[in-house]
């Protein structure tokens, strides 16, 4: 039997779409990630105007089932009371309540909660809680023109007046199922988008195509997280 000498690096779901851009790649949480596309100056400007960043490498953990909320609470997680809303589950980790009984936790850049939960979870020991294997493509959409871009790709009303601060929107973006919320990241209001990873290359292409038309484009992870 062959065993790897070191842990294998996973591919980001959008690797195929990014390869033509030849980004400078790095690794975070065992997954390749585009750190930089065209240099800090260009990308900082895009970030302010309209930038698309792949954060599929963030760690995630998801459960569903009638006892999911109780199990998470038992693990010390703060769970949102309202359906389709999000909150901070633990320092550095956000939790999205997707419908009544499904939760998605995502460690932000500095968070490290999800691996522990995954390790603790034993299906047989927790009746009424089912682990949801995920392979999301996840993006940060930043900049003043983000709403303009979304107005082309999404039919829902995403204006400040319509989208409450902690609302989670499960909708269609560019014709595919996606989850969206608004978040403040390093003082900047940004939109976060998740979709099935197999649609990731398509959604990356659509987001960056429109972004480029509006003067923005791809932004590497380093632009948001300097370390």
């Amino acid at each position, binding site marked *: *039997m*062959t*065993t*790897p000498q070191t*842990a*294998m*690096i*996973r*591919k*980001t*779901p959008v*690797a*195929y779409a990014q*390869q033509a851009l030849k980004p400078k790649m790095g690794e975070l949480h065992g*997954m390749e990630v585009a750190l930089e596309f065209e240099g800090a100056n260009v990308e900082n400007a895009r970030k302010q105007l309209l930038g698309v960043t792949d954060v599929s490498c963030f760690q995630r953990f998801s459960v*569903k*089932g009638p006892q999911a909320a109780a199990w998470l609470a038992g693990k010390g997680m703060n769970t949102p009371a309202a359906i389709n809303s999000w909150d901070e589950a633990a320092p550095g980790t956000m939790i999205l309540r997707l419908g009544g009984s499904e939760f998605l936790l995502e460690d932000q850049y500095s968070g490290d909660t999800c691996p522990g939960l995954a390790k603790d979870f034993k*299906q*047989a020991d927790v*009746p*009424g809680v*089912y*682990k*949801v*294997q*995920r*392979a999301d493509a996840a993006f940060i959409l930043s900049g003043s023109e983000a709403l*303009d871009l979304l*107005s*082309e790709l*999404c*039919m*829902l*009303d995403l*204006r400040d*007046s*319509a989208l409450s601060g902690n609302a989670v929107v499960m909708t269609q973006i*560019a*014709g*595919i199922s996606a989850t969206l919320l608004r978040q403040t990241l390093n003082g900047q209001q940004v939109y976060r988008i998740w979709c*099935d*990873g*197999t*649609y990731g*290359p*398509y959604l990356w292409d*659509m987001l960056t*195509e*429109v972004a480029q038309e509006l003067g923005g484009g791809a932004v590497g992870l380093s632009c948001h997280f300097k370390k």
Partner: protein
Amino acid sequence: MLSFANHDVNVMVTDGNDTNIRGDVVALSNGMKLDAVNTDGGVIKDKNKYIDSLSPLLPVGFYYKAFHKPASLFPFWEKVIRKAAGLGVVNFNYPRITKRKLNQHCDLLVIGAGPSGLSAALAAASEGLEVVLVDENRSLGGSLNYDYAGSDASRKILEELQAKVAATANIHVYLDAYAAGYYADHMVPVVTANGITRVRAKAVIVATGVFEQPPVFHNNDLPGVMLGSAAQRLINRYAVKPFNKGVVVTANAQGYRVALDLLNAGAKVAALVDMRAEGQRDDLVGELVRKGVKIYPASCVYEAVPTRDKLGVQGAVICPFDEATGQADPGKSVNIECDGIAMSAGWAPAAALLYQSGIGMGYSNEIQQFVPNRLPAGIFAAGRVNGVYCLQQRANDGMRAAAEVLRYLGKSAPQVTVEKHQGPSPSHPYPFVEHPKGKNFVDFDEDIQIKDFINAAKEGFDNIELMKRFTTVGMGPSQGKHSNMNAIRILAKIRNLPVEKIGTTTARPFFHPTPFGHLGGRSFHSHRLTSIHAWHESAGAFFVDVGAWSRPAYYQKPGKSKQQLVLEEAQAVRQSAGIIDGGTLGKIEVCGPDAALFLERFYTGKFADQKVGTTRYALLLDESGVIVDDGIASRLADELFYLTISTSNAAAVYREMQRWLQIWQLNVGLVNVTGAYGLINVAGPAAREIVGKLVSIDLSDAAFPMGAACETEVLGVPVRLVRVGFVANLAYEIHMPSAHGLNFWQALLEAGASHGIRPFGTDTQRLLRLEIGHHMPGYDTDGLTNPYEVGAESALAMDKPFFIGQRSLKIISKKKLAKILVPFVLPQEYSGEMPQDCNLVIDGSAIKGRVTSISASPAAKRIIGLAYVDPAKDKPGSVFDIRTDNGSIVKATVVETPFFNAD
């Protein structure tokens, strides 16, 4: 030029790729190169002028009757007619110009920025509503932009309103934009030169105003005869004097206002002809008389006198008009010299969007107009489209509508009173002047005269919808904006019915012609890729779409045909090992205490007694017993089943599972992990050795037989391993987190390199499973196939209390089968025309079935296939006939599967 309001058919031009530009409203810009559309020589050198002399022989509907026989000549006539009637030439080299299609949301959408719309928008915005205001013109104001009656009072009102709108942040204005249609939930596409914005509003105010309507008289299609509002637009928008010496023919106060604007522009008004017996009785009359304009009450323009070249007007013949009978008295006619005629006979509501919203309209005899009398929730009408004509009252009506919107949205608002219309009707009930020589046009696009309606009615087309189709009234580019109301009035007269009994034609979106590039917008062709896609591409994969996925059909190599490559890939699997990316397969986890019970009900087989670590075939039917899908159910734990589903059915099957779970209310959790897990299938005699290099478990037949499944680790990563037999007797599916797909693929290729492992695609997969004898739902079944027809009785646990489709199967099982799927071979050395999928199985002249799969098989060393045949021929050795594409008959023999000795 008739309207200067975006509805003039005779001034449509092309500028390069931009075609059917409306010359009456589109401003010239630098670099334009304009060609007239639908002319042959233009107005001055019109090569089709001869048709004018033939026109008495070409009554409406003539070509319906004249050219449909003999049928063989119709294509010729169709070409001639289309050339004569068509609009421009189709440019097959038209570039793809995509325009953005955006979405916008607001509290209130106000359509039309005339006095009513502006007042409504301002009133609503002042109460905090977010308002979108749309107008097709280049500036706000509607008729305030041009209808001045020689005074600047309207201009001042407009300036005030414009300033207020500009200072109101919560009014978003779209100018040069039209609201193209009304759709459910108050969705209105707003079209601009740059694209379409789908505006979704909580409420809509339609303040779209009215279209001016022409009176109808002989030669009313001459250049120089135009609507009064068109003359006003020329003067007050573009500073162009429409005539030097004009005649105004009117049936309302508007004509008097037009005359004053003409005088103010320096034109002479030779006469004002009022078709009403009573004429006008207000200050406008005195003002015109003071300025020397002669007014002819109870008169009509009997005919316009053309110039010698028929390119203009040189006079108007005026005679008394009996309003009650609609008869002119040409015996008392007067010839008045003039170079243009302005017409104002009334108005028709621009109510297309209201109609589309489901409004009810009634006919008001006070104003001779259809007005709303029943409005759907959230839709409001204001201004002239609502039957309100006085300028002050139009503003009031806008505020009244805004107040109603506020109340509709749960806010308080004061009652706003709008006074009813006072004085004579703004529209004439029958502004038509008959003439023995005809040429009194009702529809200027389609050249339809009064007599055409009379003839149509005589032929039985006396319903407005039938008359529209027979005469084609309203079917030209202006879509009846100047003709439909007049057509209704004529039909009412012909049938001696009140106008409201005639009704109106159907108003469909889009309200105005819209380029396909706008409608298409950006392409959203969503597609899914596995994490191995880049590798496939670099290896020369030829991709095919399977559902939403892009999958390799086979891997191309220079100098080799598809058939050669598929055979080579298949041989690799049979002789050593092949590897296929199956990540596209649907994958669903069914968890919980009732998981087995759920599967027992959902699929045809039994799962309650299935042992952990084993797989079972899962056949899904619909309630009528038709095969929907099949797959494999792996029991990974007492309360965890892992289902695979065919690629293109995954989403539909998951939806069905969710639906049935809602109905059955079982204690089950469903998790769709289609995208979360990658899947690689290693198949062939060397598969065990190759996979064995990566796993620590015992893969021997005894320890891990066909149908085994387990959770284990490969390369340090948790995976699910399943022993399958779809394409080969020895094959393993490895299900891994999808982000590891490429790592696993490369590791397996490396592990199998010494065995000559080769990737294969879906075309090869189809051949391989055919050699084994497996049918595939969707390929070998159709939307009517039941399990008995494919010999799947063994998958049916009819002794279960229930499964989807079971009841139907009980009925079907009592009936004689009409066809049955059988495996067949062609003669060993067959070299004739190759039968194809879907070629018919025949018996004499009777169709008995069809071929569903067929291929040359390197393993079986002959041509093999599956086909539906007469059930009487289902026994091995039976021979049946296949008719090939070239008509030749091929003898096929039923055999047993597998088609080759797999061991």
